[in-house]
């Protein structure tokens, strides 16, 4: 006998995967990520610079980078001109600080996963609201346990989401693996996409993230009476997701201002993805996220079970709106 969760998951997956528009959107994703990267690439940036630095005695120092595009004679001529203009006290080669491709790479992964997550949560929200609004949820509840329904919906839409993420990640990974030179200045950024361990870590974190936010989304959907209600109720969650993207951006660029947020499950996944692997802390927060996901799953089951009750949420808003005896 097939489990109800699996049946519901399969149905949810097929509801999206059997549409032409889904496959069209799926094809457009990699074209946007992979193709966009190829279009946006630039020739390798020159590493050569002449840096003029002010000195305390009022003069300045000139530093040529190693590959400054002038011969020794040309550089000497420049130094001579600067001296004759006055103020130059020293001339020395300088090393230019390169950009941090690893940080950019991690942020790119966060961005791809974030965009996919937002789209998938929207699909999940609609799937729950639609069935609650037309009472199809009651048929499911009469045949399956609330947790089976919640799990089925999250697994089904989650499978759609994983398929989307896989194709979105596959495009830059293909560029980085098979045509690294074609990526130009983005080659360093794409380097991470050729590391299976890094991709596997991102995949595991994404699954946990989708699970956690997916269960929260089912909760919101089961509370809502219709789409408009659902959008209002879901707004705070999507606001948190937006904030977590900015926090992740800060973390990826080396800023540690919001580092403590990694311990808050709502922010944990994005900060994990944006930071390099962090040993014991990573294990701890991953377990914490797992526990929060379990709690969210339990909460979603409870709310779905109570979602059938017609008056619970509406009447709590105002105890003064009691119906007359003839209303029932």
């Amino acid at each position: 006998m097939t489990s109800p969760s699996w049946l519901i998951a399969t149905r949810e997956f097929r509801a999206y995967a059997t549409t032409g528009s889904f496959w069209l959107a799926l094809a457009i994703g990699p074209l946007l990520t992979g193709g966009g990267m190829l279009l946006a690439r630039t020739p390798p940036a020159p590493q050569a610079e002449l840096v003029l630095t002010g000195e305390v005695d009022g003069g300045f120092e000139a530093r040529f980078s190693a590959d400054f595009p002038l011969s020794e004679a040309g550089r000497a001529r420049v130094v001579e001109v600067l001296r004759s203009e006055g103020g130059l006290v020293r001339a020395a080669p300088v090393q230019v600080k390169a950009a941090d491709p690893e940080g950019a790479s991690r942020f790119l992964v966060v961005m791809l996963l974030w965009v996919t997550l937002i789209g998938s949560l929207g699909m999940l929200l609609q799937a729950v609201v639609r069935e609650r609004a037309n009472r199809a949820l009651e048929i499911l509840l009469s045949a399956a346990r609330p947790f089976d329904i919640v799990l089925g919906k999250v697994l089904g839409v989650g499978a759609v989401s994983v398929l989307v993420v896989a194709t979105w990640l596959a495009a830059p990974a293909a560029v980085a693996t098979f045509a690294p030179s074609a990526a130009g200045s983005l080659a360093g950024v794409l380097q991470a996409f050729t590391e299976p361990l890094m991709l596997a870590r991102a995949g595991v974190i994404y699954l946990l993230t989708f699970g956690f936010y997916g269960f929260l989304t089912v909760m919101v959907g089961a509370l809502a009476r219709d789409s408009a209600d659902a959008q209002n109720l879901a707004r705070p969650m999507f606001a948190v997701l937006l904030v977590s993207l900015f926090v992740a951006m800060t973390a990826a660029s080396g800023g540690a201002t919001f580092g403590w947020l990694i311990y808050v499950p709502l922010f944990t996944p994005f900060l994990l993805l944006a930071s390099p692997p962090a040993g014991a802390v990573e294990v701890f927060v991953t377990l914490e996220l797992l526990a929060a996901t379990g709690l969210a799953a339990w909460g979603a089951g409870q709310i779905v079970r109570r979602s059938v009750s017609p008056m619970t949420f509406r009447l709590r808003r105002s105890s003064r709106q009691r119906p007359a005896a003839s209303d029932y």
Partner: protein
Amino acid sequence: MHAAPDALRVESLAKRFAGGGGVVDVSMQLAAGSITGFIGVNGAGKSTTLRCILGLLTPDAGRIELFGRAADHTARRRVGFLPEERGLFPRERARDVIAFHARLKGVAKADAYRAADRLLERIGLAERRRARVGELSKGNAQRVQLLCALAHQPDLLILDEPFSGLDPIAQSEVHSLFFEFRAGGGAILFSTHSMASAESLCDRIVILARGRTVFEGRTDEAAASSPHGAVVVTPDDLGLARAAAAVGGTLAPMAARMGEAARWRVTLPQDVTHPALMRALADHAVPIFAFEPIKADLEGAFWGLASEAAPERRVA
């Protein structure tokens, strides 16, 4: 030899909601191989009762038994359910959606598809079995939804307004399905506002008013208990009250006043005829806009029982 246990037994069921509404005392009994109509005005508590039976709501008090034992998840697998609002995925194919519901109740995949094909054949939709639900007409989509409740071969069918949106031919097909199901030993409990359907289909009737069971018994008993009277539309409430009192009748308003006139239900003693009431109205010079005799049928019984359960609406 032991008799088959009742398919459903509900005793003193109560479920109240935080802000009011729900049911306070509902009892009923459904024997195997019977069809029971569940009727009541809007808000009487029919849907709450059905949801409690299905385990969608937890009762505050009372007892629900299915097939001779306390209702639990396993027993509820033998129940088929059709909600009032129909919610099928419009993109799903007819046979897939029927098989899905059967599999959800534990039927093996191959058997579920065989059952779907058999049922679609039975109602003449075999050729459309691969059609998407969204491509079907409203009536056909509704029939497919009904088949979803039947596909796992339940022993008890619980249907909320099964005939709404069906044309007379489709209704007649559904009636046939009901009779076949009953002949196979299945029990059906269906809520409806159609007294004609209830009268023609049901062996038994349960009438609910203000959250209580006010009648449970055979359909012919319900019809026989129907009070005798008439519906009268008049602008002269006082004159009507005097005329009704003169023949020993009572009054109950049937709807909100519309302009000058109001619609009243006049209940008469068994020995007072309709012409006697008309004479009394004439004697009191009551202007009559409409006069409809109430026959001794289920509708009359329903009106009488619903009125009895709402004494504060009665006008002496």
